[in-house]
């Protein structure tokens, strides 16, 4: 069955460092992969979408890589800030309407 794995344990880092979050998937052939941010009690907020023919995508301090051979995406936040503290969700997408989310990784950035 299809499976999406994200680090279930919280990632704690110091302000100013780079945070790297991992998303692994199995039994999927995604045409694209999305990353969302979710704050407690709020809905997911779209951050980045990367397509299967793109190796890397950047937006301000965010960078996403997508390796279809390893079946993995890495999500980086450079110069992290306490305001980046949230849960980050990945969602590999096939040719379908629905988003299937991973369980998410909680990021905590300490001053």
């Amino acid at each position, binding site marked *: 069955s299809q499976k999406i794995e994200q680090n279930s344990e919280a990632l704690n880092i110091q302000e100013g460092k780079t945070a790297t979050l991992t998303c692994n998937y199995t039994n999927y052939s995604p045409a*694209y992969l*999305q990353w*969302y941010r*979710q704050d407690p*009690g*709020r*809905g*997911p*907020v*779209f951050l980045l*979408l990367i397509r299967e023919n793109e190796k890397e995508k950047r937006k301000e301090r965010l960078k996403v890589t997508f390796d279809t051979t390893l079946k993995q995406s890495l999500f980086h936040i450079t110069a992290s800030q306490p305001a980046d503290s949230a849960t980050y*969700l990945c969602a590999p*997408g096939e040719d*379908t*309407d*629905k*988003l*299937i*989310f*991973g*369980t*998410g990784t909680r990021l905590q950035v300490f001053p």
Partner: protein
Amino acid sequence: EPEVTQTPSHQVTQMGQEVILRCVPISNHLYFYWYRQILGQKVEFLVSFYNNEISEKSEIFDDQFSVERPDGSNFTLKIRSTKLEDSAMYFCASSGEGKQPQHFGDGTRLSIL
């Protein structure tokens, strides 16, 4: 920036009662969705809606659930006879022509007593 709005933010209902959750998607969007998130668990897809009909639904979306777009702006989720296990956050989302990305509202917290 345009956003998806959901009402109410919190709904408390007795088991067995009907409940309607309301959403106003982003105005020029064409695709509409409902997801739910049980406390501490992941966000799960319920249903997608396009051109006034359901395009896809999950196993969770059984006969107790229905969706409707009663006018040009609202999108509703109805649960006919609520059960304790329906307690969750329900998120509405919408997307434009390319289907992705989806834009989410801040949810309705549904508590069944």
